[in-house]
């Protein structure tokens, strides 16, 4: 099933485009695009800043980075009739694994039998968070990038599958209910500037409801992810072999299993915008049965004011793990060589399970200047307080050295966002 889902979007688009010349002739094309050129500065010498957990490089002390936020997106939309439409979006950016297949953000066909009901098939945005479907379009958001404490974990960019959206009109308000199902995958780098990664393949199932009423917008999402990949096998085997001398080792094994394990997101979001003042906030509780995906809650809130073509805002947020640190104690009185081996395995297990924890908070200010049509310049200043037990949104510059003290980082971002 997963195999089919991951491969059919491109296939489907190709069949539609080339099999039927008369359809091609009736097609109306729309081309559009977006781009961001961004520079990030970070004063922390031990931890490199990254936009989210899919990046393996970023800014650190005396090394500004353009890779965190710079990208170019191109989109084609084809319109056959009021019912049928197709879209392909390509995004070029510094990716951990840069392939054409990974650069296809969207490739889907949409069927709208009646106004207010849509079915899409193909590759599309995983609509789990408020910014999910346009999180790479800098111009569409007030900040330099989606708030870090919250969107840093959000590695789900797209999925291959199906979604259905139904709109309900409730007096002056509009309620949209969307259900989605599909397959997705991501390879996460294991460290700073490394080529090594951990590959996850997962199935995604979710429901999103959003209510728009005058200046207000409210949304709730529940999404469940089932992991198909089998990660952590080496450590599980090693621990299994040691259960004779170290009976407690067996307790860590289930945490290192991933296949068929689940994690889920419960998200609430809120937005108020009266065209002068705006306020936006999101909260997500991530519950995880997978030891390699950290249980936690994430939150941000931001408020801003527009004055002519200038915008000013404040933002703040936190990420807090909801599970205990894993501590494995090796039995005493074992022969020295065995004890040393056990200590190594215990340390590797703890690193795997505790290394995914995220514990930090931040606050910042920023400004946006719409200096020309479809062009915006932003400046953002943020202060991050990162707990030594939860640095996973950052990359350790020296992978061999543990972070033993809580860290602080001042991150300055300058971005130029363009639509075309």
């Amino acid at each position, binding site marked *: 099933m997963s195999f089919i889902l991951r491969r059919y979007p491109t296939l489907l688009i190709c069949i539609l485009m080339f099999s039927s010349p008369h359809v091609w002739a009736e097609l109306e094309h*729309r081309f*559009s695009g*977006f781009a961001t050129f961004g520079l990030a500065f970070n004063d922390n010498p031990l931890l490199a800043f990254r936009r989210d957990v899919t990046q393996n490089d970023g800014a650190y002390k005396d090394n500004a980075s353009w890779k965190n936020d710079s990208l170019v*997106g191109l*989109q084609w*939309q084809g*319109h056959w009739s*009021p019912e049928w*439409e197709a*879209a392909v*979006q390509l995004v070029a950016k510094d990716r951990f694994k840069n392939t054409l297949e990974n650069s296809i953000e*969207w490739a*889907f066909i*949409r069927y*709208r039998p*009646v*106004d*207010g009901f*849509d079915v*899409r098939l193909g590759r*599309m*945005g995983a609509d789990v968070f408020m910014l999910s*479907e*346009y999180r*790479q*379009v800098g*111009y*569409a*958001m007030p900040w330099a990038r989606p708030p870090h404490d919250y969107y840093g974990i959000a590695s789900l960019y797209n999925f291959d599958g199906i979604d259905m959206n139904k*709109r309900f009109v409730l007096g*002056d308000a*509009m309620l949209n209910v969307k259900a989605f199902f599909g397959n997705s995958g991501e390879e996460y780098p294991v460290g700073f500037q490394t080529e090594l990664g951990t590959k996850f393949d997962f199935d995604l199932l979710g429901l999103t409801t959003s209510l*728009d009423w005058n200046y207000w917008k409210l949304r709730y999402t529940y999404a469940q992810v089932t992991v198909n990949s089998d990660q952590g096998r080496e450590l599980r085997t090693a621990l299994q072999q040691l259960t004779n001398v170290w009976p407690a080792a067996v307790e860590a094994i289930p945490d290192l299993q991933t296949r068929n394990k689940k994690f889920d997101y419960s998200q609430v979001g809120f937005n108020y915008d009266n*065209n002068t003042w705006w306020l936006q906030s999101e909260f997500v509780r991530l519950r995880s049965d997978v030891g390699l995906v950290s249980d936690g809650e994430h939150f941000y809130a931001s408020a801003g004011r*527009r004055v002519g*073509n200038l915008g000013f805002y404040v933002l703040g947020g936190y990420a807090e793990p909801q599970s205990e640190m894993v501590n494995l104690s090796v039995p005493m009185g074992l022969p020295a060589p065995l004890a040393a081996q056990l200590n190594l395995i215990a340390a590797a297990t703890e690193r795997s399970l505790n290394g995914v924890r995220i514990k930090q908070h931040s606050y910042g200010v920023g400004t946006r200047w*719409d200096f020309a*049509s*479809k062009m*915006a310049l932003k400046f953002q200043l943020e202060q991050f307080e990162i707990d030594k037990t939860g640095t996973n949104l950052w990359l350790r510059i020296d992978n061999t050295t543990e972070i033993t003290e809580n860290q602080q980082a001042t991150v300055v971002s300058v971005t130029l966002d363009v*639509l075309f």
Partner: protein
Amino acid sequence: MRNLLLMFTVLLLSGSLRAEILVIVNTTNSITALEHKQIVDLFMGRVSAFPNRQPARPLDLKAGTPLRAVFYKSLTGKSEAQVDAYWATLIFAGRMSPPEQFSNETALIEKVTKDPSAIAYVTRQSLPNGVKIVMELPVRE
């Protein structure tokens, strides 16, 4: 002096009252009038059909055309940059295709005369056969 002042006030008021934008559709469209909220829904990509369920295709002027900024400000209270940012959320999410854009009002009107599903906005003027007014939108500065 007081009379002169009154005359000026009257002139100013009548001037501002006359400053209206016309929302137009093809004459074959069975819709005779649209409410403010229905126009907002159509031009902000919230709906893709007229209240009579016929497909609707809003037409737009190119970014930077003065009437475009005035139209969206009067309709939604949003600046052109806000409108572009809002539409970017719909377009790049793949929810809606961007409205077709024209460089001047003459081209807009011509398109409306040819397309039964079109809806567009123009400054108050005498209109050719083939289009009809469904709303007069007062200008908000």
